[in-house]
């Protein structure tokens, strides 16, 4: 159980060093992605202006306020509330995100599936759990919205955030086949029959 402070971008070795049970605090840069922009990138042939090599992405679509462009808000957006959405919907995009765009770390909630675990094993990556629904707290870790791509998809644009002390996040899926979600599912299924018997539903 190690706590890692990682400044993004990270190397393959840094990503592979993350193990289930560890915690992570991220510094510097974080990209916000989700359904519509992933569909645009991988199903509709659009390319992002961002270089995501070695970077971390969070499954999000923030609440933002349009403001004049300043040093503090270089993209003309103030972050009102930046939270995390359910990751499972993005499952089929993990491998292409890692292979084509070079992403190493995925931050989300609720966990992802076998395809993501396989991609982490093959390419070197990890999934970090943020507490879903704790968006007001998460917003305090965001310094600013630095730049926005595909803003025609707003709020499902691709967001580049400047972050400070983003965490602690829990490593819940790693490149060594570890998944907290699989373990919890297996345990729940093992308990199912006894629980059903107790409530007369066996």
């Amino acid at each position, binding site marked *: 159980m190690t706590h890692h402070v990682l400044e993004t971008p990270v190397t393959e070795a840094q990503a592979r060093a993350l193990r289930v049970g560890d915690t992570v605090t991220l510094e510097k840069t974080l990209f916000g992605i989700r359904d519509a922009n992933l569909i645009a990138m991988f199903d509709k042939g659009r390319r992002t202006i961002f270089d995501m090599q070695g970077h971390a992405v969070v499954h999000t679509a923030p*609440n933002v306020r349009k403001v004049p462009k300043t040093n503090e808000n270089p993209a003309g957006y103030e972050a009102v*509330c930046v939270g995390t*959405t*359910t990751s499972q919907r993005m499952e089929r995009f993990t491998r292409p995100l890692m292979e084509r765009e070079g992403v190493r770390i995925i931050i989300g909630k*609720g*966990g992802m599936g076998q395809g993501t675990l396989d991609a982490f094993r093959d390419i070197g990556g990890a999934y970090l759990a943020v507490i879903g*629904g*704790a968006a007001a707290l998460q917003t305090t870790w965001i310094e600013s919205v630095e730049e926005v791509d595909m803003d025609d998809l707003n709020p499902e644009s691709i967001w580049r955030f400047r972050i400070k002390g983003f965490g602690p996040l829990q490593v819940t899926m790693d490149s060594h086949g570890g998944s907290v*979600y699989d373990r919890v599912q297996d345990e729940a299924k093992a308990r199912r029959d006894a629980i059903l018997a107790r409530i007369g539903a066996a």
Partner: protein
Amino acid sequence: MLLDPKEVEEIAKTLYIRSVKLLPPDIKRGFERLMAAETDETGRTVLNTMVENIAVAEKRQNLLCQDTGIPIYNVVIGKNVEFDGVAMKEAIRHGCARATTEHPLRSSVVHPLTRKNEQTSCGIGVPIINVDFDSRDETVEIEMIPKGSGSENGSFLQMLIPADGVKAIKRFVIDKVIECGGRVCPPTIVGVGIGGTSDLCMHIAKVAATRPLGTTCSDPEGAKIEAELSEAVNELGIGPQGLGGRSTSFRVHVEVAATHITMNPVAVNIQCHSARRANAVITPGGIDFK
């Protein structure tokens, strides 16, 4: 009492903004109860973070969760209230759109086929406006629920048959809670609809999911299943955020409706831990926000 559409529009706007910032007291008490019973270390850490988030949102007057949801307005009109129904619904729609553009809030509503976002939280059939009536004199109550999508995607309907019995209803609920795991942002309120037609079954599941904690099913048989299932889901070990622990759900809520001799429908609709809801009661004396 005459219901003024201008007033309804302002209330609809205020309720949306209040709902995404202030968690109802029954849910806060629900967190206290879960904390007292949670023995898993990870579960306790996650619950603590959720409670901390509620405090941060209140202190900074920020949104509890980024998901502004699908807006639902439940209007209950009492006796001796004069109102123009069409104007009232239009006023709610305007208030909902104004909350989105003026606060601003993220518009989370799109056309289902083009996926176009009008940036108003409105669209075909949205906001959802349910109108009902009760016997309170000169009283109108409006409840606003921003229904988050992570838990709304945890919705299931099964048209069971009489031969499947009550056993199959219970199995269905347990299996769906396992299937959803951490995706629906536990600890949840598991809303269960039993009986009715397919649409009524789903509707009462949502009524159950959005009912305040501490309330019980008015039907004694429904209340019995509610108690049984509430205990059972917290023995699964799914825990807060699906990372392990006792606190999978605050409570299972059941609502029942009469059904057909050939039918035995069950529906599940889940509410995440950010169980947001805001109410306003309008009387000749003024508006009381709760």
